[in-house]
């Protein structure tokens, strides 16, 4: 029984909170909390769920309206940037694919999911069949749609069930893109959609040649897919490919994703893994190498995490549990994940009791399956992170890959506004502020400092975001505070900056105390300057006070 049938209504487009309330009220008369407590609890749960779902949808729409009204109206692009066709007021004609995508976008935005599924998407597919050169563009645009309109309303009815035809997916892979496949993979794994997982894995299996493509195909993800199903033969096939591909290249050139995929593949294939690992563990590769070489490090960790699932490996561990290895494990111990800790424990035990007879390890098969599933899901989550990083870092290294077809300015503007909004929303949550455009100077400063700090820590995304926001003029390129407080010592300035970015609620108490002291000092100084009539100092003082209030609120919330 789903929530809608529990409430006795149909999930349809345009359902309002009012409809929901009416349905709930009607059902409630027959499910009074005092007469039927259990039934009531179920009904209540369904009601609260449905309310949330509707609110989410409304939220999406409200948001769009909000930022449309907040940004200065997108003036018709100034005349000299747009080549004019015919009359000056003629609407700019979009290229066909963009036009169709825009139509799909509009349908979804208006909640016309059915129309989008029945009309817009088939039209796009039809068009693409005769225009294979536009697969790449399609891939990036569709993934934007997936990101903009997550599963709407009922998961079963939602548009994200839209799965492009196999031809399109293969076409995407052939054009060295994998946005859509990745998005679908994420979706399938999150939703536990078995059919979809199988479908995707099958596509990858059927087109193994694609896996050799120099561009990164989500090899590791598909491997996980096959495992999660669990389709052992399929996993083996993919593993085979992964293995071949990995052994062909040298260790150093393997990227992180492949390294993990490879270490998994060796286990699935039950083939030569021991040789490979004993290479590493029997001092042909030293512990120091592992520590210094990132790829080897991942091999090692992957191995550690996997060992718990393989009965035979336990014997192997006993043979190669040397002092060196134990030391190595201890080196990593603080950062080990749960399955890795389990592996580490095996090593430890083996090392300590290398003389005593092996303990009987009776593991129920079922249990181990379940455990491995959980592990895989965990690892998959890790992948998502890794692949994000590696994707963006790749984009950084390679020359930027411009889409083969220029996007129409309106569409580009639309995407940019969307991105702008999503960045601000994310940052807003993180920094704890409201992000209505235009941003006040203070908030601009806070965002800049936050992003700069993140970028310094190696978050490539933060760097891009900062650049993007500056280009869009959401935050000014120059910090107004730098020049204003030229008379502050460098140390003070950096402390002030630190203070402004001190938004992490998990700051240790000591840090907070220190920050508070600096804050007090600064405040004193500013007050004095303000008294002397310095207007800038007065403003800065205000900013500090606001900043402090908002942080205090954070702390109070934490206390609760």
């Amino acid at each position, binding site marked *: *029984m*789903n929530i809608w049938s529990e409430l006795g209504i149909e999930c349809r487009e345009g359902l309002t909170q009012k409809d929901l*309330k*009416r349905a*709930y*009220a*009607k059902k*409630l*008369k027959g499910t*009074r*909390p*005092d007469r039927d*407590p*259990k039934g*009531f*609890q179920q009904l*209540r*749960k369904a009601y609260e*769920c449905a309310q949330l779902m509707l609110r989410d949808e409304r939220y999406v729409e409200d948001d769009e309206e909000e930022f449309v009204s907040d940004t200065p109206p997108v003036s018709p692009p100034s005349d000299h940037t747009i080549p004019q066709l015919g009359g000056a007021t003629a609407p700019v004609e979009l290229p066909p694919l963009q036009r169709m995508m825009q139509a799909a976008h509009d349908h979804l935005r208006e909640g016309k999911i059915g129309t989008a599924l029945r009309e817009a998407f088939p039209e796009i597919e039809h068009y693409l069949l005769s225009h294979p050169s536009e697969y790449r563009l399609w891939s990036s645009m569709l993934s934007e749609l997936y990101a903009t309109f997550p599963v709407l309303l009922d998961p079963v009815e939602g548009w994200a069930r839209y799965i492009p035809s196999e031809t399109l997916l293969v076409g995407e892979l052939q054009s060295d893109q994998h946005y859509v496949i990745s998005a679908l993979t994420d979706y399938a794994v999150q939703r*536990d959609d*078995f059919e979809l997982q199988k479908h995707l894995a099958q596509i990858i299996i059927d087109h193994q040649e694609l896996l050799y493509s120099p561009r990164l195909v989500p090899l590791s993800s598909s491997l996980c897919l096959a495992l999660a*199903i*669990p*389709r*052992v033969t399929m996993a083996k096939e993919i593993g085979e490919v992964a293995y071949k591909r990995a052994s062909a290249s040298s260790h150093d050139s393997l990227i992180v994703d492949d390294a993990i995929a490879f270490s998994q593949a060796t286990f699935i294939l039950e083939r030569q893994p021991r040789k490979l690992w004993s290479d590493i563990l029997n001092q042909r590769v030293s512990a120091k190498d592992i520590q210094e070489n990132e790829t080897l490090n991942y091999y090692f960790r992957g191995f550690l995490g996997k060992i718990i699932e393989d009965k035979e490996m336990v014997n192997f561990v006993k043979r190669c549990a040397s002092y060196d290895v134990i030391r190595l494990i201890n080196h990593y111990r603080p950062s080990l994940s749960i399955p890795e800790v389990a592996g580490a424990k095996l090593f430890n035990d083996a090392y300590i009791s290398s003389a005593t007879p092996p303990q009987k390890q009776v593991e*129920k098969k*079922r*249990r181990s*399956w*379940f455990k491995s*599933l959980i592990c895989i899901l965990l690892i998959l989550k890790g992948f998502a992170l890794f692949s994000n990083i590696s994707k963006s870092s790749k984009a950084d290294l390679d020359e930027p890959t411009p889409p083969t077809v220029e996007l129409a300015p309106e569409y580009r503007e639309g995407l940019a506004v969307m991105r702008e909004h999503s960045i601000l929303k994310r940052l807003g949550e993180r920094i704890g502020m409201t992000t209505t455009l235009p941003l006040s100077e203070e908030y601009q400063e806070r965002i800049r400092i936050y992003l700069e700090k993140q970028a310094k820590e190696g978050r490539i995304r933060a760097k891009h975001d900062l650049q993007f926001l500056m280009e869009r003029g959401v935050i000014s390129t120059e910090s107004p505070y730098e020049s204003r407080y030229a008379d502050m010592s460098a140390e003070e300035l950096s402390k002030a900056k630190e203070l402004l970015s001190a938004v992490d609620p998990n700051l240790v108490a000591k840090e907070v105390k220190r920050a508070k002291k600096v804050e007090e000092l600064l405040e004193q100084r500013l007050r004095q300057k303000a008294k002397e009539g310095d207007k800038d100092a007065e403003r800065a003082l205000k900013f500090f006070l606001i900043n402090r209030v908002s942080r205090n609120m954070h702390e109070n919330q934490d*206390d*609760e």
Partner: protein
Amino acid sequence: MENQIIGIDLGTTFSIVSVYEAGRSQVLRNELGEALTPSIVALSKDGTTLVGTPAKERLLANPKSGVACFKRDMGTDAMYSLSGKSWSPVECSAVVLRELKRMAEQALGTTIGSAVISVPAYFRDTQRLATLKAAEFAGLKVERLINEPTAAALAYGYQRPEEETNILVFDLGGGTFDVTILEIFDGVIEVKASAGESHLGGEDYTDQLSEHLVSKHEIKVATEDSAKWRKAVNTAKCCLSRGDTTTFDFLGQSVSVTREDLDAASAELNTRIRGVLKKCIYDSGMPASEIDQVLCVGGASRMGIVKEIIESIFPGKVNLSVDPDEAIAIGAGVQAALIELNEGVEDIVLTDVSPHTMGVMVSKKRGGVITKGFFSPIIDRNTTLPVSKSEVYSTFHHEQDEIDLKVYQGESRFTKDNHFVGNLKLNGLSHDPNEEQNGGAVEVRFTYDMNGLLEVEATIISTQRKITKVFEQRPGMMDKNDIKAALEKLKPLKIHPRDALPNRYKLERAYGLYEDLIGDDRALLEHFIDRFEHVLGEQDFDQIDSVGESLERFMNQKSPAK
């Protein structure tokens, strides 16, 4: 009518009884035509118990002979000495309840056995239990404890069920302060959030003003005159709602009181009132602007100074259509009709929330050091009742045999700042560390019923041994059978999802199918069963449905018979 249920507002300063008849809930009057019975108990010279107006008179004459405001001590160990005899707040309340029962019987010409009693929404578990005990002593079966502001809203809403409106009930009584936000639509009266303080009311304003005046005018009040003095100050306080200055005569001395005096005396109380209002609005998730009307109940909400606060936050929204004194009693009467399933109110359903967060004390291991005294919430405040939720806790070490489960009520992260409700000891937890199942794991289930009473059940997962406890302040006060009966009544709430029939059925079917299938299909089915068993164990209700459905879908595909 047979077995009629009465509604009772057991207030700090006075109490009222009501009954639902002929489509209306109405207040009952005593032989003297009075509806308000002062909540005062006193002993006369010859030792007979006086209650209501006679007790109030007696108290004026001899302050030591009686007691008032005992509602504020409900649920504590306080004892009053009345002419040398020792009385508890529960016993005093019982006397008042007995009087109300007598009044109702007299007015209706029938015997009354059961009642709906109103309590401040912010009453804690122990205070509610004390109220139940008082009723038991008075020979009344409590059909329901209703929260006072909810009752007030019911009094407003029961005659206009079709109206769609958001209401804030501002209930400042003699000794307690409650704010509740409700939504009314299609006959549903749904409480969104409640907040309050159990020691903030009109009496506090009188106390503060009295202290202020004593220090300002340097008046010495002898103990035997204290009741008279309080009465005079109270009258002055009321007068200030109508004018800016007033004077009263106390033992020949003329005392003048100005509005400034009241402002100065009550500054701190006003801040507390604003704080509670803010908290409630925040909890309701509704901006203040969406509140359509404010119902003021409780005698103290008549004070000018309080009205100004409300008016400043909700300008022009105060609804004067309910009587601040009688609304709660009328609402209790409506609730009684709801329980009787009276046809006049069959279109109305009321849902209320838990006013406090309930949880247990846990210790945390941080950096190898075990720190005690953290609060681990199980039921969040303002969750719609009834509700039943569970969490799993574990021992620190396999040799640890006993857990002392301390139940707390409150919002602080540290239990020392929360209110201790009671404890529950569990032993037999030491286990073999090599066992697959963690023998130290305990499932703690909290069940919060519609009266706002808590039942705790702890189950040692490995042995399925259960320990159940309904919390009460002093063990032994209630009959064992009564507790058992209460447990029986709560039972329908706490079926483990694993034992719910549809889930049980799904599992059995899956086990059967497992034997029929082979190869990949079998492995797949195994995978589905594992997940289903897992979510059942977690009692993750959202997941149970979706995972159960996917299991069923799969079975339907593969099942040869179907």
